């Protein structure tokens, strides 16, 4: 199993240079059957990462650029009257795919956002009283630009909660950037990329994730973290039970990527910033979410 996941990571790293940690996190999120939110400045490779992952995992890929005039129908699909059959015929939208890249999700109106988020939760679309099931596996990789929020509709906390992870990509290091500059950019390579696994194999990996052992000692630690976020004055509100479940699933995926059959506290510590960062609202506006999580980790004994 570790061979496969290593191969996936290696292949993706050929396109996204020097970002193994982020690739691993994104993969862990997919293995834990969650949706991914990538928050970073334009040009950091958000779209490339999403596209590469879809390619490597052998998945269908669709991309929607979110704008303020985008309507729910543009994403979900629409029923059009067919004169030949004298009937309404459903034209599926871009959402009927394995991986949907929702670019700049915060540019769309809340109406469209919520339509998408609903589908993310249910994995099905209901239009005119007919329910259409989405292909499996299905997940959304959304991106948003954190700095220029003018003319955007920021996702409220309740909707941020739908994303299992939020990651940032950050600038590449000097060596990777040199390598990138020497090549012709990732896009060309992207087209040549061959998949490592297919959708069926991915589903197998996802279910294998469930079998990663979580001991009582680890649950003690996990609960200590949850308790701390709820009792500490540092946070406005603590982590929800759903967040606790998410932490466990991500830690399992992370342990699998490390080739272990059980979760250890280090797994939780690795994924905690990405899983809890967007769910915890700090009481103080001065410290960033990264500092907050670091503080949280330091405060809870293993």
């Amino acid at each position: 199993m570790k061979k496969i996941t290593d191969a996936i990571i290696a292949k993706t790293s050929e396109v996204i240079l020097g970002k193994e940690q982020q690739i691993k996190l994104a993969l862990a999120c997919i293995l834990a059957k969650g949706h991914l939110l990538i928050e970073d400045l334009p040009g950091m490779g958000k779209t490339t990462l999403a596209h590469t992952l879809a390619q490597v995992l052998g998945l269908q890929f669709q991309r929607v650029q979110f704008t303020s005039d985008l309507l729910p129908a543009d994403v979900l699909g629409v029923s059009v009257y067919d004169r030949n059959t004298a009937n309404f015929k459903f034209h599926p939208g871009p959402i009927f795919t394995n991986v949907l890249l929702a670019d700049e999700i915060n540019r769309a109106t809340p109406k469209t956002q919520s339509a998408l988020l609903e589908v993310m939760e249910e994995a099905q679309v209901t239009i005119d009283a007919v329910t259409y099931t989405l292909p499996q596996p299905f997940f959304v990789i959304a991106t948003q630009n954190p700095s220029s929020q003018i003319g955007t509709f920021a996702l409220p906390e309740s909707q941020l909660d739908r994303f299992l992870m939020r990651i940032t990509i950050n600038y590449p290091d000097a060596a990777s950037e040199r390598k990138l500059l020497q090549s012709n950019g990732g896009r060309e390579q992207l087209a040549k990329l061959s998949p490592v696994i297919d959708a069926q194999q991915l589903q197998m990996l996802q279910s294998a994730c469930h079998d990663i052992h979580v001991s009582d000692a680890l649950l003690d630690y996990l609960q200590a973290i949850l308790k701390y976020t709820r009792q500490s004055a540092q946070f406005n509100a603590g982590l929800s039970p759903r967040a606790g479940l998410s932490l466990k699933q991500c830690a399992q995926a992370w342990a699998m990527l490390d080739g272990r059959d059980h979760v250890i506290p280090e797994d939780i510590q690795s994924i905690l910033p990405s899983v809890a960062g967007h769910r915890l609202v700090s009481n103080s506006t001065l410290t960033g979410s990264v500092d907050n999580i670091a503080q949280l980790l330091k405060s809870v004994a293993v």
Partner: protein
Amino acid sequence: MFNRTGVNVMASQTGTQTHISMHAIIWLLLSLSITFTLYAFNLENWVPACFIVFAIWRYLIEKNNWLYPSLWLRLPLTLAGGLAVLLTYGSLFGRDASVGLLAVMISMKLLETRTKRDFIVMVVLSYFLTVNILLFTQAIWVFLAVLLALTGLTACLISVSHQNKKIIPSPQIWKVQAKLAAKLLLQATPIMLVLFVLFPRIPGPIWGIPQDSYSGMTGLSDSMEPGNISQLSLSSKIAFRVEFKSAIPANNQLYWRGPVLWHQEGRRWQMTSDSIPLPIETLETSGVATDYTITLEPHNRNWLLMLDLPEIAASALPAEARIKHDMQVLSKEPIRTRIRYQGHSYLHYKLGAQLSERERTLALQLIEDENPKTRQLAAKWVSEKKSPTAIVEAALKMFREQEFIYTLAPPRLGKEPVDDFLFNTKRGFCEHYASSFVYLMRAAGVPARIVTGYQGGEINPNGNYLIIRQSDAHAWAEIWLQGNGWVRIDPTSAVSPDRIEMGIGAALPDSNLLPLLSRQDYPMLKHLYMNWDAVNNGWNQWVLGYDQAKQLALLKKLINKDIAWEDIGLLLVVTMIALMLFVSYLLLSNKGIALSPTNRIYQQFLKKLAKAGVPKLRHEGAINFGHRAAKALPNQAIEILEISALYSSMQYAKHQASSEKTNKETLSILKQLVKNLKIK
């Protein structure tokens, strides 16, 4: 109006907190209400009244968002309060005045208590005021009420401290805060007990209680006038309690000897002066001695009551007491704390076989030219050549056969009190009978004196001890007969035998004047009261009566060695430190959770590494720490990594339920690895 802006600034600052401080205010006012209710029994009435006014005012300020009174109102109020205390008590010092001043100032401070800091100051002051009530009274119920008030104050403190946290206001919050406060007090109990047992006691009353504390005590006086014993009989206050080593003697034997009065002056009878001490009267005893222990309530006088007639072995007496020539036992200092002492008495005795000339003079002393009718009667008996015994008989016969009535409410006596009583009103209480009898005897030339004290008592079946109340106060006579010495004659028994046989309740069955508990018509109440008194008696013996002697005895029992009270201080400090260290240890050591065997071995491993200068951070996972330690100690890197990996898998990997044996093997491998790890 000019400080409105100031107030508004305050309000906007505390805006979100008003809700919480309402809790704090109500807690504070409730607990202070308890405290002031207790003080209502001990301070002038206007002091609690003052509190009620300011408490309501403060509550309305909070409720209706009124303005706080300005400095120009508060300043004169404060001065007026101080002045009122000064006028009431005539001083600002002394127990009553200073506690009164504190109480008044705390009431007024309510009007300027608004910030968190104010509340904390207020609560601390209120703790002090509340505990001060114990300077006035130490009954159990007061103690319980004080505990209640302290719990309320602690809840106030909790409520104030919670103000910065967001708490959803709910009716539950009262319960939560009260529970937490009770828990805090309960946690303080061990410290309280250690302090109670070990805090060095000093013999005598609590240091520095001002003298005015004792003004309210009741008891026998050193002189007697018609009316003052019947006055005393209206009080149900307990005078003393007695535990007998053997069976309790019959009621008519229970004469508790107090002041002996010799000197007559008008209607007043007084003790002999101590300036020229008389030799102690000789005592011959017969029969079996009665041994008993008396717990005497403080009465601010010197007498120690004893069963008639005590044989005094100096060693048995409480510190520095002495015996007077007429068998009164006197302490050196007035009795201001409850004391316990042993008694050793004989019911059959012969006292003062020889009467000295001086005593004879004293025992025949009368003011001339008073009570002519009485003197005539006495002269008549003498002229009939009656013997002293016959004279006594004649006098008692007169009481018995004429229409004398025993009553708690005798009419006032005129200018010649004995004449008026014997020949006119014929209604009196024991002091009337005793004094007129002695007067008659002296007029007839028989040496006589009055003995005051208590008669009877009430058996508490729950504790098998005797309760003697102020209502049992009594006066009787002693006459001196050639050959017999001083003989006790109780003229009251001639008038009302029931008084002596069965107690005052039986002698005056219908008297509404008697205190409720001395009467016979409420058996239920009496039963309840007896239970309650047994509890009270225990409280007095073991809590209030825990003095230096008891403390030393207890410690001697515990340590099996004599210790001085200076050592107790050291013991106290050591115990307190040990207690605190223990509590800190419990708090710091993972709340005392027992470690699993795996973890215990891992802890040894961590200890070894910590000694080598690589301590594990508490938030570090085993694997991460292993890597860090391996880097720091490259020589042992392999072992460290192996141990870390093994521990981590033991802790977090899946165990097969069936492979108990392998689990044990892994454990022993881990043990071996840790044991073999040598760090140089």
